[in-house]
């Protein structure tokens, strides 16, 4: 292809500048891939961990707003409120958790959904005394065979087994961080006191490690009936842990549940809204930074092609006198931009892959994590195509201005000037 041959010759005639432009594009593309892989990797990892570790929807025995009093309802003037004529003085939202009253209805409804798994718990804060120290813990009462895949701590048992709870009626499982902190070992006992004043001595029959500090330090797992006794709520539960096949449906599902059953239902998206916002902001920052790198690379391309056009005005006049049209000339210089963009993008993809290789060998310890993890990276092929497309597109745009100038050069002026 003739155009290609000429374009290539022009670039080769300015090797050093061509190489600098190539490096610009290559670094831009390479950095983008490295950074984007880290960003997307950690985003995916964060969301994965959130959706693994936390219920997708949680129903708690509380209400978002205190229920309206009968007087309020009368004054609202709405037809369905007209019958609410009873006035009760001193009505206030319940201070104590009484548990979810209609939990059987909720459970029955959830069982009709194929894409839903759930577990019911009774949770209560307790004060724990160990070797003279007192600290507050969250005692989570579970039914062991219900919680697999739903409650993260129950899935992360590293010593003993969840079923040990059945063989010791005072058994609990504790987090590894908690165990280490107090130099506890399997079989040791701790004393707990509940808000309702019940005191029990519990024996550690298992250890879990979720990697999440809050879980590993503060959570104790025990049988559901234990917490019902300790919290003095026999036969009640106060939490639903719900997992959906598609975690991204959680928001809508929580709204629906809350509307139907009245109790506050929180989706993971709602709980993690700040974090999701942070991720979105972080992504925007990344695109801005990498966009700036590519912009600088584009100046390089603009620069080399302008230089070539200026140096090659004579050649342009020759080609035009030979019978090359304006468009033919423009195409030559656009192709030069494309060549720099394309080659730079290919090299950049190689560089990006190299970055990923190096990054994959690094382990980091995030705040809030109890052990170091390999850096989460996204190896998706999509980002290579995305950034290469951007690089090539911008390279062609950068080449367009000088190319158009070259196409518009009147050959006669050049011939006259040179003769």
């Amino acid at each position, binding site marked *: 292809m*003739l155009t290609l041959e*000429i374009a290539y*010759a*022009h670039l*080769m*005639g300015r090797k050093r500048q061509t190489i600098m432009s190539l490096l610009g594009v290559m670094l831009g593309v390479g950095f983008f891939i490295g950074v984007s892989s880290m960003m997307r990797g950690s985003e995916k990892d964060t969301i994965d961990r959130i959706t693994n570790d936390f219920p997708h929807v949680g129903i708690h025995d509380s209400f978002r707003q205190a229920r309206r009093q009968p007087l309020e309802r009368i004054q609202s003037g709405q037809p369905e409120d007209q019958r609410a004529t009873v006035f009760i003085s001193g009505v206030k939202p319940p201070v104590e958790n009484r548990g979810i009253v209609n939990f059987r209805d909720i459970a029955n409804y959830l069982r009709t959904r194929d894409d839903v798994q759930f577990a019911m718990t009774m949770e209560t804060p307790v004060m724990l005394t160990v070797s003279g120290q007192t600290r507050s813990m969250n005692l989570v009462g579970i039914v062991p065979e219900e919680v697999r895949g739903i409650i993260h701590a129950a899935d992360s048992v590293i010593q003993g087994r969840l079923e040990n709870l059945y063989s010791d009626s005072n058994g609990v499982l504790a987090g590894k961080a908690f165990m280490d902190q107090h130099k506890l070992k399997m079989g040791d006992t701790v004393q707990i006191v509940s808000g309702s004043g019940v005191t029990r001595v519990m024996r550690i029959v298992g250890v879990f490690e979720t990697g999440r500090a809050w879980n590993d330090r503060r959570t104790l797992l025990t049988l559901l009936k234990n917490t019902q006794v300790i919290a003095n709520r026999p036969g009640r539960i106060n939490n639903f842990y719900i997992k959906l096949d598609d975690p991204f449906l959680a928001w809508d599902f929580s709204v629906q549940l809350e509307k139907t059953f009245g109790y506050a239902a929180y989706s993971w998206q709602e709980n993690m809204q700040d974090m999701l916002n942070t991720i979105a902001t972080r992504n925007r920052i990344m695109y801005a930074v990498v966009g700036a790198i590519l912009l600088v690379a584009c100046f390089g391309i603009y620069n080399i092609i302008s230089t070539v056009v200026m140096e090659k005005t*004579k*050649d342009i*006049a*020759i080609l*035009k*006198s*030979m*019978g*090359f*049209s*304006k*468009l*033919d000339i423009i195409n030559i210089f656009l192709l030069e931009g494309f060549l720099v963009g394309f080659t730079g993008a290919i090299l950049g993809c190689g560089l990006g892959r190299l970055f990923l290789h190096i990054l994959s060998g690094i382990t980091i310890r995030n705040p809030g994590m109890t052990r170091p993890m390999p850096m989460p990276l996204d190896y998706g092929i999509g980002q290579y195509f995305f950034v290469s497309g951007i690089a090539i597109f911008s390279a062609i745009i950068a080449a367009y201005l000088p190319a158009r100038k070259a196409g518009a050069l*009147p*050959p*006669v002026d050049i*011939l*006259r000037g*040179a*003769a």
Partner: protein
Amino acid sequence: MSRDKDIGDLIIRTEKVSRVLEDQEFPVTLVRDISIQVKRGEFVAITGPSGSGKSSLLYLLGLLDAPTDGRIFIGKQDTGLLSDKQLAQFRLENIGFVFQFHFLLWEFSVLRNVMLPMMKLQKFKGEEIEDRAVMLLTELGLEAHMFKTPDQLSGGQRQRVAVARALANAPILMLGDEPTGNLDTKSTANVISILKDLVREHKNTIVVVTHDTDFAKQVDRQIHIVDGQVV
């Protein structure tokens, strides 16, 4: 070098052609009311004092510039009716240029320079292109220099390469702007005899601008220009 296209006997015919530069402080007339004819197989020299408008006329004849008034026919084609793109294509097919400075593409070999117009037009295909370039260069005595780049040649050799390139697509018209203006006596004689051969033996049509009175005497006809007008 076939001439089977129906182009008639008049290769060039101009009718009252003028070229005025309007975008200056005051308008500059480069050429005025030029009406000339060049027949097929003629070797014509355009002569005249410096600044008289010889180059300007040649650029008009070569369709590199457009007249502000009058009409130019090449063969039977009224060139005023062609779009920019069609003009480029018309030049590619029908007109070969040689300039005072050789104007070869520096990055390409001699052979490649001669092949370029053929690769663009694609009238000749594949192997034919290289064969024809080799043939032209051999005819012009450059067979030993085909794979050199232009900077490895002498001025006379470069000018012969330029002639070979101008002939590449077998144009109906060859135009030269002082093709010997930059050469020593020996090379000048060489280029002149090559151009004469092209007319005598191959029935080419050639129009050259020249200062060289010796050269001008050897052609079929001279068109003398003073102040942009034929005298």
